[in-house]
C-alpha cells in the first residue's frame, strides 16, 4: 500500500473513534472497523482495482458528517419532493432527516440509528471482509434504513441520500427485505444538494424472499465533485426475482459493486445498468452473479456512454457452480464512445463449472452511426440535437426496463441534461 493510501486509512480509523455508534449499530461498527483496519484501501496491484486508482479519493481529508447539518430549508424541501410517485425518505450526509412512510403500499421504512436493535440480517449479506469499502462503511456507519416489503400489493419506496457538507463522507447502510411473495420497487437516490466534495459510501443488503419480486433502482446523480462507492449485496430465494437498475450519471469518481447470489431454484436476476461519463470522470462497475443452485436465470445488460476524457471500467463476473445445472445466463456490455479521448475497459468473466447450461456474453465498443446522424440531419434536425437524440436512443433500452414510466422519463431527461451541460453532446 502506498503512503497516501496508508495515511487515508489511518485518518478513516481515527474518524471512527470520533463518532460513537448510534442505536443498534455497535456490532456493525466494531466488525467493520476491524476488517477495514486490516484491509485498508486497495492499490492498483489488486486485480479488482487495476484501472481504478484511489489516490484522488485518498488525498482528501474526509470528515464525519456533523450531527446538525446546516441545510437550506428550500434544498431540503426540494429533496423531499415526491418526484417518483411517493413521498421520499430523506437522509442528509447519511443521516435520516425527514419522512418515514409506513403502511400499505408504502413499504415499511425505519431509520437504523433510531432503532435500539440491529436487524438480524444486517452485516450478513454484505460481509465486512468481502470488500474494503464494505468494511469502511461498517466502521463509520452513522445511520441508514431498514426497508421491509410485505404482502401482495406492490410497494414503492424512495430513499434520498442527499449530501450537503463539504469534505464529509457518509456511509449509509440499507437493508432491504422483500418478504416471501411481496412485490415492490425501492429507489435509492444519491443527490448533491449543493456542489460539494463528498464521499457517499453506501452499502445495500438485499434479501429477496421466495416468490418475491423486487426492482431495485440505484440512481447516482451527485454533483461533479462527488465521490461514490456503492456496494449492493443481494440474495434471491426460490422463485424470487430481483431486477437491479444501476443508473450512474457521473461524479468525480464512481465505483459500483453489485454481487447477487441466486440461492433458491427458479430464482432470477436481471441486472440493468446505464453509466454516463463526461469530463475526466471515472466510472467503474463491477458485477458478480453467482448461480449456486439449478434452474436459475440471469440476464445482464450494462450500457455505457463515455464522452470527453472520461474512463469507464466494466467487469462482469458470472459464476455457475457445479450444482447449478440448467442455468441460463446472459451478459452484454455495449459502450458508446463519444470522443477520441474517452476510454472503456470492458471484461466479461464467465466461470462455468456446470455442463448443462446456456450462457452467453458479449461486449462492444462503438461510435454514433454516421448514417443515422445524416438521416436525422437530412430531416432538419440540428447536428447537436441529432447526436443527443442518438445517444439517448442508445440508452433507451436500459431506461425502458425501469419499473415506473415517470422514472424512465426523469432519468432520461437528467441523462440528456448532463450530457448537454458537459458541452459534450459530442
Amino acid at each position, binding site marked *: 500500500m502506498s503512503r497516501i493510501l496508508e495515511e487515508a486509512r489511518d485518518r478513516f480509523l481515527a474518524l471512527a473513534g470520533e463518532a460513537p455508534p448510534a442505536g443498534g449499530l455497535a456490532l456493525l461498527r466494531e466488525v467493520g472497523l476491524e476488517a477495514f483496519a486490516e484491509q485498508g484501501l486497495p492499490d492498483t496491484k489488486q486485480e479488482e482495482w487495476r484501472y481504478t486508482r484511489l489516490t484522488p479519493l485518498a488525498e482528501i481529508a474526509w470528515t464525519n458528517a456533523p450531527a446538525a447539518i446546516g441545510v437550506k430549508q428550500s434544498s431540503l424541501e426540494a429533496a423531499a419532493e415526491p418526484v417518483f410517485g411517493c413521498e421520499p425518505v430523506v437522509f442528509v450526509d447519511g443521516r435520516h432527516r425527514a419522512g418515514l412512510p409506513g403502511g400499505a403500499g408504502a413499504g415499511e421504512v425505519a431509520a437504523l440509528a433510531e432503532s435500539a436493535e440491529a436487524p438480524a440480517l444486517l452485516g450478513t449479506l454484505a460481509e465486512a471482509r468481502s470488500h474494503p469499502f464494505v468494511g469502511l462503511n461498517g466502521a463509520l456507519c452513522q445511520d441508514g434504513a431498514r426497508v421491509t416489503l410485505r404482502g401482495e400489493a406492490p410497494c414503492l419506496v424512495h430513499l434520498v441520500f442527499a449530501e450537503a457538507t463539504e469534505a464529509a463522507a457518509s456511509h449509509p447502510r440499507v437493508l432491504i427485505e422483500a418478504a416471501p411473495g411481496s412485490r415492490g420497487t425501492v429507489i435509492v437516490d444519491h443527490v448533491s444538494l449543493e456542489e460539494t466534495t463528498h464521499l457517499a459510501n453506501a452499502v445495500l443488503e438485499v434479501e429477496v424472499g421466495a416468490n418475491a419480486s423486487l426492482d431495485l433502482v440505484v440512481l447516482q446523480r451527485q454533483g461533479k465533485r462527488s465521490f461514490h462507492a456503492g456496494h449492493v449485496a443481494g440474495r434471491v430465494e426460490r422463485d424470487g426475482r430481483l431486477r437491479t437498475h444501476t443508473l450512474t450519471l457521473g461524479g468525480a469518481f464512481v465505483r459500483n459493486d453489485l454481487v447477487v447470489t441466486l440461492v433458491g431454484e427458479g430464482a432470477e436476476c436481471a441486472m440493468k445498468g446505464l453509466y454516463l461519463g463526461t469530463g475526466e470522470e471515472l466510472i467503474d462497475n463491477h458485477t458478480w452473479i453467482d448461480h449456486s443452485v439449478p434452474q436459475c436465470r440471469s440476464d445482464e445488460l450494462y450500457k455505457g456512454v463515455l464522452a470527453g476524457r472520461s474512463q469507464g471500467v466494466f467487469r462482469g463476473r458470472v459464476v455457475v457452480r457445479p450444482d447449478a445445472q440448467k442455468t441460463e445466463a446472459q451478459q452484454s456490455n455495449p459502450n458508446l464512445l463519444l470522443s477520441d479521448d474517452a476510454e472503456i475497459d470492458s471484461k466479461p468473466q464467465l466461470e462455468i463449472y456446470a455442463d448443462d447450461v446456456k450462457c452467453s456474453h458479449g461486449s462492444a465498443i462503438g461510435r454514433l452511426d454516421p448514417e443515422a446522424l*445524416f438521416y*436525422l440531419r437530412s430531416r432538419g434536425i440540428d447536428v447537436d440535437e441529432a447526436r443527443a437524440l*442518438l445517444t439517448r436512443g*442508445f440508452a433507451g433500452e436500459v431506461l425502458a426496463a425501469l419499473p415506473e414510466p415517470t422514472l424512465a422519463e426523469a432519468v432520461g431527461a437528467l441523462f440528456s441534461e448532463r450530457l448537454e451541460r458537459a458541452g459534450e453532446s459530442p
Partner: protein
Amino acid sequence: MLEIKNLHARAGDALILKGIDLSIGAGEVHAIMGPNGSGKSTLAGVLSGRPSFEVTEGSVLYRGEDLLAMEPEDRARAGIFQAFQYPVEIPGVTNNYFLKASLNAIRTARGEDELDAMDFLSVVREKMKIVEMPKDLMGRSINEGFSGGEKKRNEVLQMLLLEPSFMVLDETDSGLDIDALRVVANGVNHLRSPERSMLVITHYQRLLDYIVPDVVHVLSEGRIVRSGGKELALELEEKGYGWIEGAAAP
C-alpha cells in the same frame, strides 16, 4: 429552382459523377433512370448533403443559392427533401418523437410556431391515412423492424409532413408490390404543385405511369447520356439499358 452545372463527385477514391448538367424549374417533375451503379444515389446524396460524397468540380444552385455550401439540416430547412433508397434504422428513438422534432425544426425555420403534441398528432394522423400507414409504427423505433414497404411509406409520410419544395425520390418504388406502389405514388402526387419540383429516380418505368414526369434523363457511368419526354422511359423499357450504354460510348 435547381441548377446543376458540370457536377463531379467522388466517394472514396472513385470518381462517380463525371459532369452532370441539369436544370429543373418550379413545378417540374424530372425522372432519372439508369442501370445499377450509374450514380443515381450518388447524385441524390450530393443534393441532400451526405458527408461520404465529395464534390470535386461544378456547382448546384438552389433558388439561386449555393446548395453545396449548406449543411444537410440547413438544406432540409430550406425545403430540400430526399426519400432514401435504404432508410436507416435507428434503435431507441421513436418514430413519433423523431417526426415531431423534424417537423418543428422545419416549421421554426419557416417562421411558423412549433406544434404541441396534440396538434402534431392530428396532423400526422391525417398524413398517415394518405399513405395507409399502420398506427403502431409511430410508437416504434425509427424504421426498426419495418418491412421494406413500411420504410418507404415512412419516407413518404415524412415528405407529406414536411411539405418540401424540392424532392428527390431515390428508388422509392423498388421492392413495392403494385398496391403499395399505388399508395406511395398517390402520396407523392399529393405534393405536386406549381411551386414544387421533383427528381424521381427509378430503375423501372412502371412508377412513371403513376408519377408522370415532364422530362426523363438517362444516367450512365456518371453522365446524363440522353434526355427526353416521358416516352423515353418506355423506349428504355423496351430496348433495355444496353441500348443506352452503347450510346454512352464516345
